[in-house]
């Protein structure tokens, strides 16, 4: 049952990424050129609703569908890892035009070369794990 729910949520996510054009390289380029409101509208409206939602969930003792308490995990405090890591991610996001969610959506949409990108991003994650202890965090 839970497996089905994860799968269905994933399907809705995939459809949303494709139909919103957030999975389009062109939309990412246009966003960084500040030539359209589209991507800002998507992220901004998701965020406004998200903030209200999270605050409400924290105040109302709501349980998950399976009766568990809903947990939020605060991110550990740091500046350098978020700033440096974020810049590296941003460089790749703009170059490849896809982030770790939409890149899988594009596999389903039939773009074979995206597999090269996914493979490279797995290798990139591995390289991070390899030298992580030598990096400022």
């Amino acid at each position, binding site marked *: 049952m839970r497996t089905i729910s994860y799968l269905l949520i994933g399907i809705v996510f995939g459809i949303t990424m494709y*139909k919103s054009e957030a999975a389009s390289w062109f939309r990412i380029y246009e966003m960084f050129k500040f030539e359209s409101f589209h991507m800002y509208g998507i992220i901004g409206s*998701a965020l406004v609703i998200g903030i209200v939602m999270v605050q409400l969930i924290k105040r109302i003792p709501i349980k998950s569908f399976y009766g568990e308490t809903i*947990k939020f995990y605060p991110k550990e*405090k740091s500046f350098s890892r978020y700033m440096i890591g974020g810049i590296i991610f941003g460089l790749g996001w703009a170059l490849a035009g896809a*982030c770790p969610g939409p890149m899988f959506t*594009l596999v389903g949409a039939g773009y074979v070369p995206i597999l090269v990108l996914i493979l490279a*991003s797995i290798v*990139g994650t591995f390289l991070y*794990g390899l030298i992580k202890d030598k990096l400022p965090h």
Partner: protein
Amino acid sequence: MNWIYEPWPWYVSGPMIALIMFLLLMVGKNFGMSSNLRTLCTICGAGNKVNFFRFDWKSQKWNLIVVLGAIIGGFIASTLLTNDASVDINPNTIADLQELGFESAGKAYLPTELFALDAMTNIKSLSVLIIGGLLVGFGTRYAGGCTSGHAISGLSNLQLPSLIAVIGFFIGGLVMIHIIFPLIF
């Protein structure tokens, strides 16, 4: 019924993303896609060499199922819900891109110069995908999250670290598009 083939406007797409985050919370999970890349490393055996990948990947199986769904969703959306996949970007953006050599701007969903099958025999296109992927994979784990984990989940929970990461995403993206693109394309 033609509306079904149209791209979704931002005011449909954004609330849908919030709904997806809500549904994941309601099944006891947190929205974040990039951790799957770490899980995939572990499945490939990276835990034998590097401590960072030594964890029980089965605890992350749920997120891989979300990924499987995202693939299926991409298939459904592109085949059943779309007639004309071309992305209607700003005419100024199209002009800019054509000047950089992206002739497919305004005519396709992804630039054919990078994502068509025959682009794979082009060293430059292949390099863009490989370098882009390496940066995404490395940076997202270094920053502890990507667009979903930081820009949506983290910022929704008013996390300062996520704000720093998102500012970083934008610095990186702006440098790439405005400074590096004119040099490489």
